[in-house]
């Protein structure tokens, strides 16, 4: 049962504070991933021919499908946050759908790794594999954190701890998930398009 105190609307100033803090965090994380991408481009330039000839590459169709899946989860999550903001019904269900799609992405990511390992390419095989595994590992760690955050918010939405009266944790978790999504798109472009 939500008490009267809990249903007080969140102080709009506090909401701005929380959002601003999250924006700075995202800025910081962008620098962390920017560093990884810089490493990618420097090593790629050192290697010369890219991808190095004669090695098995991760599956393009699966990576493209994973990209679409992750984008879809972001779109669904965005709709869920909009519903939370309006206090509209069905927010928790949409949120659950976005989380489930996120889990599906994690599965596809695991398949990408497994497929590559099956064709004999491991993280120790060379610069390409180091970059592919290393960068996707770091990204996957953020996906895992994002999924934990999404589940946490899911529980909060279901118990009424979060909702229209307290939205900043929800919108911040969503912001983090969108960020993880954007990083994946850059990863996809770096490894499969360029």
């Amino acid at each position, binding site marked *: 049962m939500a008490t009267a105190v809990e249903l007080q609307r969140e*102080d709009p*100033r*506090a909401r*701005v*504070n929380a959002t*601003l*803090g999250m924006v*700075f*965090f995202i*800025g*910081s*994380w962008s*620098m*962390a*991933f*920017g*560093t*990884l991408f*810089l*490493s990618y481009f*420097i*090593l790629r330039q*050192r*290697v*010369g*021919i890219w991808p*190095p*000839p*004669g*090695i098995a590459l991760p599956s393009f169709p699966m990576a493209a499908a994973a990209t679409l899946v992750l984008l879809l989860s972001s779109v669904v999550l965005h709709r869920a946050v909009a519903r939370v903001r309006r206090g509209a019904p069905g927010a928790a269900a949409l949120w659950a759908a976005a989380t489930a799609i996120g889990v599906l992405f994690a599965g596809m990511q695991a398949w990408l790794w497994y497929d590559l390992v099956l064709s004999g390419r491991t*993280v*120790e*095989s*060379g*610069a*390409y*594999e*180091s*970059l592919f*595994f*290393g960068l996707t*590992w*770091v990204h996957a760690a953020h996906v895992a954190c994002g999924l934990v955050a999404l589940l946490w918010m899911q529980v909060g939405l279901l118990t009424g701890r979060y909702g229209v009266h307290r939205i900043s944790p929800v919108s911040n978790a969503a912001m983090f998930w969108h960020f993880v999504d954007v990083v994946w798109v850059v990863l996809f472009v770096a490894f499969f398009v360029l």
Partner: protein
Amino acid sequence: MSGDHIHPEPTSFLRKHVFSVDHKVIAKQFMWFGLFWLLIGGIMAMLIRWQLAYPGTPMPVFGKLFFSSTGGVIDPASYNTLFTMHGTIMIFLGLTPLMIGCFGNWCIPLMIGARDMIFPLLNMLSFWTVMLGGAVAFYSLFVPLGGSEAGWTGYPTLSTTVANQGTGETLWAVAVFLIGASSIMGGINYMTTVIRLRAPGMRWTDLPLTIWGLFFTAVLNVLFLPVIGSAMILLVLDRVFGTQFYVPASIMAGGGGGDPILYQHLFWIFGHPEVYILILPAWGIVSDLLSFFARKPAFAYRVTVGAMMAVTVLSAVVYGHHMFTTGLSAMLGESFMLLTMIISVPGEILFFNWLHTIWRGSLRMDTPMLFALSVIFVFGLGGLTGLYLATISTDIYLHDTYFVVGHFHLTMAASALFATFGAIYFWFPKMFGRKLNETLGKIHFWGSLVPLTIVFCTMFVSGYAGMPRRYYDHTSADYLKPLQHLNVTTSLAAFTLGIAQLVFAFNFIKSRWWGEKASENPWEVGTLEWTLPTPVPHYNFKEIPNVVCGPHEFSNPAIPDGKDWIYQTEPLAEQPA
């Protein structure tokens, strides 16, 4: 006023003193933490200096304690670990927690009129993360094969498994990562707090310069600590999972492999802003202290802020001057040289502003002021010698010599440390309700400044004469034997410097519990923290203050009651037309 960040006063011991979210308690935790590591790092410096002055001679006292297996002689591997961990500890676990962790936490809410940091829980997490980082760094010294031996910069291939198979190096990388994460959390907190929680009426131009320095440092922390974090992740992947980011091992397989120079880029993209992370709060603190103790407004406040802002921006684009000897393309090298030279312009503006601030002031030579003045001196020495290192032609000769060691110790170590000491002497009365003893403070000051100048100026001479840094035993090379007396001079001065710090330690402990009780505003300064009673209550400000004037309104003829200072909450009298 946002009520969100106000939390009730805790009652249990654990929540009050250990897992506290109160910025004042966290500031003191950072202070004890930083002082502890300063002591450890300082002892390491003494051990290094002993080995350099008297190679192969058993060290008295400490030798028996730490190096009993060799009869008190420091062995080469331990020596490598000592200079590596001395740098790492002093930068990441000594100065950063003290200056940014302690004084960032202490000053920001109190000086801008806030009841706490904006994210108190994140603040606590920041402290416990650096605590964990410190524990990992400490533990790394005792694993098989010993601690990191790759230098504080951790360059590959020395830091990869090619050179060092032990877990010490890996733990070093993990520790740096954790400490970086802590700094990022702190930085986000500081930035958001300064932006969102300034008291009503406090414009950006009413902020004390200390806050400006800490704010710019927070920006750099948030932007550039993630870079070292990522570089450390790649290093750990290389060491533990056999990736090839930094090891050029797979040239035969696929025509490619890692690149040790990649690490140097990543490290210095972080590393150069890091020296400004350490010096910007020092500049801010010094700018304030000089004004407070010269009883004059800080000269050209806005220009000082602009200069610090320019340094913050430029600090991101000069890192290549650390890499002139790596075969950097000539055009890139010259660009970095030019940009590095340009950064001295805002640096000089700061100097002139400081000199103008004290010019014809009514100087009060209390210990905080002495330390603030000494920063002008030691940073001047360090800054001027920096020009030789920024110039490619001279840097190629001076690279990796003691000239570099002298330069960066004077700038980022001595200046930051002296500003921190100034800050400790200055804010101690508000923190603990007692004053540090002035006589002992002055002994500490002169006992620090004179030997410190000798230590690092002698290093300029020996470096210019060609003495390389990080060597275990300079007497093993014939061409360095005539320079050994310089090493002895440096070491004797360094030991004096070390002993002077014991005076400070004694003063700190004695004054903390048995010192002379301080009045609520012993320095007669008008910034917001001095409007508060001592000890500062849990909620800081009973009423959020309304700020009506700047932080440096000293000797303003419009100050009523014949005082020469005014609180930031008090209005100046109407000026006669």
